[in-house]
């Protein structure tokens, strides 16, 4: 008896698709689930934080890693942590921050699994210094199409390693991995805020301060036009050393404030984030952040939106898309300028727009970032309008040698994708080696032509 399909979506709640969902209890169960008969494709799903259609496959099977969530070992000398794929970043923080360890890099939510983080090769506010999570991953265990688990690293089965890292789950189901945590002395970050007048100044502030800042990111006002286009609040931070805490705070250096988690209890009939509300928010936010230094806790600095559960519901029943663009260093100023003016002209409101500078690439075949800049923005979904806008943005990206992040993408076409990811053929060759019958597929991989429809 096959259970009824469930309607799934990514975090953007657009698009949606129906998949049969299985939640194996352990790695052996996962191997059985993968080895079963899935003519219509199979893809792994962690906490569903990818925005688009990468963690479901319409008409196929989704295997959740929720119960494959055990810690396997930790070496307090090297910081090497060995975990099953379903362990979340939130869980790792809860267990290890009190002992003085933190994630080597983290996306803007801690509600992601290790498996999902590796499949999307996630990056965070320290990419300009250290690159994405792949830089810290030592080993990945992948359950490949025949149900066997293949261990891979830079030295062993390195083809599978570099295809699985950033490979969006298309080489197999990641069931376990080991990666290095980093030492922190406190649970705080010392942040310098700089308010900039325009895009050029924003990039200059990055240039000037990034070398000395462990973390760096800019909130950018996507409603500002003309001379103010690209005005931002740049936040450059470093992990606060113990010696800089007040004597009172020093008694509990790894404590985090107990925040009241707010929740969006239901989906409003229309998006509450429209051009008027976002314009007001942006004015207030920009005005409120002068140039100053502040010590904040890790949750506030890294995960501001995690304090509002189901915030994605604010975009209403039709959802939203997140558009994350990368431009290489030599073309980023021109590219970003053109991208921003197109967005401003379209009137598409972006509540959360984030700009950051990027550092070293990690060698993943479908790697997203290398030295340059990346801009991420939310756009409420409006049928027809958004497809046309994203098509225009994609062309700007291509003209400037940029690319779009697969963990956010929901609309790109196959031709564009192929032009942005030059190592696709190399990736496909590895996929064929471990998945000759094309078992692993997502709605995204079919849309992009990575797997046949």
């Amino acid at each position, binding site marked *: 008896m096959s*259970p009824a399909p469930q309607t799934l979506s990514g975090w953007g709640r657009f698009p949606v698709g129906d998949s049969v969902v299985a939640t194996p*209890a352990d790695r052996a169960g996962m191997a059985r689930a993968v080895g079963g008969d899935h003519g219509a494709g199979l893809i792994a799903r962690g906490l569903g934080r990818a925005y688009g259609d990468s963690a479901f496959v319409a008409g196929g099977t989704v295997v959740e890693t929720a119960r494959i969530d055990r810690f396997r070992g930790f070496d307090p000398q090297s910081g090497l942590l060995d975990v099953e794929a379903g362990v979340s970043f939130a869980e790792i923080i809860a267990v290890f921050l009190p002992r003085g360890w933190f994630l080597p890099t983290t996306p803007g939510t801690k509600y992601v699994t290790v498996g999902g983080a590796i499949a999307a090769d996630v990056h965070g506010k320290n990419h300009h210094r250290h690159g994405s999570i792949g830089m810290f991953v030592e080993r990945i265990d992948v359950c490949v199409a025949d149900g066997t688990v293949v261990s891979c690293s830079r030295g062993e089965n390195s083809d599978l390693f570099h295809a699985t890292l950033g490979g969006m789950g298309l080489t197999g189901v990641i069931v376990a991995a080991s990666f290095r945590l980093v030492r922190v002395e406190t649970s705080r970050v010392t942040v310098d805020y700089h308010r900039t007048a325009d895009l050029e100044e924003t990039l200059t502030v990055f240039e000037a301060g990034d070398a000395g800042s462990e973390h760096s990111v800019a909130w950018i006002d996507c409603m500002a036009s003309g001379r103010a286009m690209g005005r931002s609040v740049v936040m450059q931070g470093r992990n606060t050393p113990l010696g800089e805490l007040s004597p009172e705070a020093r008694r509990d250096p790894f*404590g985090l404030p107990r925040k009241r988690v707010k929740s969006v209890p239901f989906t409003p009939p229309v998006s509450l984030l429209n051009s008027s509300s976002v314009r007001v928010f942006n004015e207030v936010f920009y005005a409120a952040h002068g140039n100053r230094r502040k010590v904040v806790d890790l949750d506030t600095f890294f995960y501001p939106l995690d304090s509002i559960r189901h915030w994605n519901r604010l975009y209403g029943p039709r959802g939203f898309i997140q558009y994350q663009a990368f431009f290489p260093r030599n073309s980023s100023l021109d590219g970003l300028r053109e991208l921003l003016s197109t967005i401003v002209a379209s009137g598409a409101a972006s509540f959360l727009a984030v700009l950051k500078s990027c550092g070293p690439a990690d060698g993943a075949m479908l790697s997203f970032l290398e030295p340059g800049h990346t801009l991420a923005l939310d756009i409420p979904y409006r049928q027809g309008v958004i497809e046309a806008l994203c098509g225009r943005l994609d062309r700007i990206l291509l003209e400037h040698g940029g690319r779009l992040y697969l963990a956010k993408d929901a609309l790109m076409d196959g031709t564009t994708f192929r032009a942005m990811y030059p190592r696709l053929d190399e990736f496909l060759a590895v996929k064929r080696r471990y998945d000759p019958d094309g078992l692993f597929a997502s709605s995204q991989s079919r849309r992009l032509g990575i797997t046949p429809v």
Partner: protein
Amino acid sequence: MSRTPKRDDPRNVILVGATSGIARGLGRRLVARGWNLVVTGRDAARLAPLADDLRVRGSGTIATLVFDPSDGAAVAGLFGAAAALLGAPPDGIIVCHGTLPDESGALLDVGQTRDAIDAGFTSAAMVLAAAARALEDRPGAFLAAISSVAGDRGRQSNYTYGAAKAGLTAYLSGLRNRLHPRGVAVLTVKPGIVRTAMTEGLAAARSPLAADADTVARDIERAILRRQDVLYTPWFWWPVMTVIGAIPEAIFKRLKL
């Protein structure tokens, strides 16, 4: 500014059926408190990764014991074995093992009925009997077992399971009455439907009343620390079962529940 886990006096606790969905979350919470645990299960291959997980999370001693709660000799030796593994006599036990027979289709046959009662009641009562004998002279000790709201009233969809759990609830109630003067707490846990591997694929697991295993584990942890008697988890099952319990049998027998 504090969420750093609080440490209390280390407890030495036996977690029976530790690979179950609820026990997994509960074990994680208890080791985060610094408690020492003996985790038991029938299958050594599933116990080892569970113990590794708990060792990474906790600072106390984590020992594994392959243990079949339906084996009388093994049950009689449980506390001795646990004491040897921990280097100290246990002062608490949590009984979590169980299975859910499929009563949705045809009536269970004679053998299936016996198996369901044995799995849901007999083995748990045997373990609790051994625990009571081992802990009756240890004031401050506790016994906890996972019963079910299904034991509050028999319904056509799971009355064999419910009957076994009703037996367990009655057993725990009597044990509490007996051990209370000796300062030993007995906790009856009555969860509703919980999303775990045991309920995977059941329509009920997708009901809005279904709870996450971790929510239930959190409630159980709190009830153990408070030395509570009976826990409905999540809390809304207490009013729900009060209403269901008050329906006259003449009406109840006509309902589709």
